[in-house]
């Protein structure tokens, strides 16, 4: 005896204005009677605070009360019987009713402290004697097309240059004295469906380069009482140079945005989700070998970096 959910789209992506469609598949060896088949949709923003910045408050709050986006239950079938074998029950559910406006339908996002999640649950109640059959599945919500920005995104590029003088952390003495200069440009406003693009040129470097990486960072902020707790964490690292590359050759920056781990930049009242892109240059150094496993964001003597804000939007 089992129940399964199968959504109409294999990628499980739905927009709030679209009905969530699918079927409930019940497999049973003998016919069973039930008190109704219900499908429930639940969407919420889950917030939690961990790590140092929370301090004492963290122990008090820990997990904050989630923000509900949608919560609805629909009876698909009234009580009755399900015959033996495989039974498929189709269902269709409106996600957002035009009249009700509880909360914005944020896009699905899985972060470190904030997660925006939409779940669909099927429940077959079978009275007190039997355990009810149920299963839950996550589906992904993307912004309605109607709410999207019209037209293509203006190609907004930020020009950066990284030298020994732009660094706010201590550098190796030989790096400081020898000097280096890396320039380039990178897009700071980007559609989620497009890769982050840009280019980078190593113009000079006295010390051989070990690697150049692009870090994609998320900045999650949560309002806790009077305080805003912000945490920046790494989503993905993409190497664009391996070794001491030729000077004055332009290297492309091309980072495909990972799904679920990114979403449109949100600046809501109780929380916000923002993104950053960091260009990190590691120089060859004996020191770096001895400390291999360290958070790549930590400023080190042999690292030079530049962090730029990145606004992500959903476009058509």
């Amino acid at each position: 005896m089992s129940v399964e959910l199968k959504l109409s789209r294999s990628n499980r992506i739905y927009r709030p204005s679209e009905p969530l469609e699918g079927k409930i598949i019940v497999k049973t060896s003998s016919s069973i009677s039930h008190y109704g088949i219900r499908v429930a949709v639940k969407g919420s923003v889950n917030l939690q605070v961990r790590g140092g910045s929370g301090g004492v408050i963290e122990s008090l709050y820990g997990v904050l009360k989630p923000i509900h986006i949608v919560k609805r239950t629909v009876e698909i079938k009234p009580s009755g019987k399900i015959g033996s074998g495989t039974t498929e029950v189709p269902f269709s559910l409106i996600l957002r009713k035009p009249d009700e406006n509880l909360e914005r339908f944020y896009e699905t996002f899985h972060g470190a402290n904030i997660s925006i999640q939409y779940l669909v649950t099927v429940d077959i109640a079978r009275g007190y004697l039997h355990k009810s059959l149920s299963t839950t599945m996550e589906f992904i919500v993307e912004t309605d097309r109607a709410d999207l920005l019209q037209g293509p995104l203006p190609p907004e590029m930020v020009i950066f240059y990284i030298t020994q003088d732009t660094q706010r952390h201590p550098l190796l003495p030989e790096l400081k004295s020898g000097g280096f200069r890396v320039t380039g440009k990178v897009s700071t406003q980007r559609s989620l469906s497009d890769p982050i693009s840009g280019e980078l040129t190593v113009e000079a470097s006295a010390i051989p380069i070990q690697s150049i990486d692009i870090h994609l960072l998320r900045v999650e902020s949560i309002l806790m009482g009077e305080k805003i707790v912000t945490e920046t964490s790494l989503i993905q690292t993409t190497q664009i140079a391996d070794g001491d590359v030729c000077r004055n050759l332009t290297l492309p920056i091309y980072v495909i945005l990972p799904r679920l781990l990114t979403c449109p930049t949100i600046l809501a009242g109780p929380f916000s989700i923002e993104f950053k892109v960091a260009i990190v240059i590691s120089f060859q150094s004996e020191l770096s070998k001895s400390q291999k496993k360290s958070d790549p964001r930590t400023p080190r003597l042999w690292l030079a970096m530049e962090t730029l804000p990145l606004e992500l939007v959903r476009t058509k």
Partner: protein
Amino acid sequence: MVDASMEFRPRNYSAERQSHVLPRVRADVHPFSDPSLPVTQVDVVDHGNEDFFDPLRGTNDDEKATPSDHGVMCEADPPTKEWTSFSRLLKQRFPVSKMVSISLMPDVIIRSGKLHEKSSTSMHLEELDDPQKFADEGVRLITWQEYVSRLHELKDDINRSWLADDRITSLKLSIKVAKLLMDTSVLQFYPTLFVLVTDIMDMLGDLVWQRIKQKAEFAEDGTLICNLPDNFKASDVCSEAKETCNNWFCKIGAVRELLPRIYLELAILPCWRFLLDQPADNLQRLVMMIRGLADPVACAYCHLYMAHCAQKLPWHDIGYLITCVNDIRVILMLNLSTNQSTHGSVTGNKRLLVSLVEPSIEYIMKCIFKGLPEMQVSDVLVELGLRKNQQIVGSVPCVSVVLHHLLKELPIEVVSSNALEILHLIECSNDNSFDQHMNYRILGFRLYETGSPVDIINSVLDKVIQVIAQYDGLDEYLKVVEAYIDLVLQNQMESLLNTILEVISERAWNKGVTEDELPSLQSLLVKLLSHFKCLEDLFTLNHFSEILDAMYGNSRNAVFMHILSMATRTDHIRDPTTIQFLFEISQTLHDNMEFMHVKDDDSQVARLICRFVHKVDYGAEMERQLEFLVDCRGAFGRLNELKETLVHLSNCLAIQALKYAKKHPSFIKTCITFSEVTTPSISTPSRQLDLFLETAEVAFLGGLVSHSDGLLDSAISCLQSIDIRNGFRTPTDVEGLVSSVRKLCGFLVMIPGNSSLQATYLPSNLFTLSSSYSWMEPKMRTQIFSAIILLLATLSQNNLPYHANAEIPGNDKLYYGDSSYKQELVSLSKLVLDNLVDVIQKEPSQVARGTLALEACNCIASAFTSSNEILSACVTLIETAKSCLSVRDKYLQATIQFVDKQLQTSGGSVCVG
């Protein structure tokens, strides 16, 4: 008549000939001299040329024939084949030593078992980003076979997980495999590793392609959505398939390390077609991404893989390839100039580096110029920075290894019309990536290909000769000269040729010729040899013999062989100096023959020497000719076939002496003696038999009857030494021997009996020997016995069918009316006959037995008159034949008829039924 029951059939040979001879008519035209024939032949050849596909003539036509709008999969075939052979060559070029020491052994190679469990449990993308966990930093040793077999295992694993719908594992394993290429610590191993890894990448690429195509064509439940045509557009692809395809690019895009990310995207490059109508646009980005790989070898091989993968796209520009070449050039220049590189400034390491990078330059250049319209060539040169304002600029230095492969691929017209500029370019590109003289060399070869105008060739040659005159070594000089010598010869620049030869000879004598230089020198001399028509022209060249003298070893032998084959192309070799020269050459070749190795070369040497000996002609000076043969026998003792030639030639000489010099008995005798002495040293007895017989005939013709007798005796005794067990087995050998014996019998008809011996001494000797050897098969024996019977029957005639000449009386004169002679013949033939009938029954094969019986029966019926004994022999034989063959057998029928007619029997007595 002692035995009236057996009697030879009397024959009237002249009457028989008259009745059997065909009427003869004079023909107007010789059947072989049809004058119209050569013309039609030429026509046929010309016509044939058009559709004849020469597999060696490159693939130019193929490429033209491949239309650009063909689908990926159907077009993928020819490049795949090309790639396979390219990668095979690549592996051969950089053979791997048994042990590979890899400082950082990736765990994918070491821990083979654990991989599966791990991959199935956690599937987060983040795991892919984990920095490689290297087992430890110490140098680990692994045998090369282990490494390879581990990679093969991985390939199987990837395939297996794919089939089990566990595509994430396939991808993860593939990423690990691609990461192996990040390690360039063992340079020599890298090309092989590259071939193995890209093989896996290609497999993954195909799997992904097939999967997405399937998604585009079939719905989840298996119903057909559409059939994608070969030249489908992105809009033909359903969103489901696009989604999957996009997912793949996302997953690969999430790989942290640059190198595996590029390799994997290249592997699934054709899949861009599901998303974009211009998938080739990505190539420009990818080629820029490759710039991020600082390691010159890793970078070059990544370019190589890119060039390979781009071939799978239905259409692509060559712009990205140009960028490839330019980037490789920049990296090479950087690596060649820096002295503080981590490898140290050892030039050997740089050499290795260049040689490792070379294949990818070679391949990319090929891709650039493959099917490139001539109009675009100059654009390419501009893009490569080699041409400005319609002029090839020599002042911009080009890395010479790049230049070398450019020159190799540049269309010949362009080479020819820019020869001087190219020369200038070569001059300016003198770095240590490639030997400059090799570029001069390739220019020479290319110019010879085109047939450029003389004035250009003149100025190029002037310049080149000037440059190479500065070279210290003979080797470099030779390498360049070898390329230009064809041009020199073609344009008949005698003085230049003279200069070149003088320089070579001078250098060869001053410093000697090293092993490395010999092949070039050999090729140069061979080119000279094939240019000149005859040996005399060659000797008029200054320094030629000096250069020849400076050579040694196999190269010298090869040149000698060329000289020999060239000299023996003429009809006669008469000039004594030439003969002496060739004789010495032959002697050297003969002495250097390695009987153990290279059989082909040796047999060619033997053939050439034989031909030379044949062609030597002293004309009327027969004594000198014979002397020459004697010298040859002394000098070329190891050549069996030459000894045969010598016997033939000396016999020939004897006949010549007979014909022209009239009566020269002592000379003829010398010739015969030479033959007689030479023959026994030939190793095959059957050849000895033939040669003895031949010599006997010549001796007999020269009136040397007793010599002839002796030779015949030797011939017959040769049968003794033939041993069937020593490889004397093939049917042709048996046939040959039988026919030799038949020839012997035919010859014996003319030989007068020796008064001191029995009249039938030789035939009975032959019979005794043939019946005593156990190795002789029944078939052979039957045929020999039949031949003896026919010989005896002929000898019994009052008039022999042929005689040697009037001076030597035949046995018909010698024993005319001698009844004891006839008696002797009859009694011998009786003996032979009895044995004949018996021996036939011993033939194991039924069909052969029947045929043999009929053969013997025909022989008996034509040799003897009818008598009871003969009749009964014939009946026995016919019965044997009947039991073995079908009654309707034509030979059987004809034999029965013949026997009936010859023996005048009533039809019933022989032919039962």
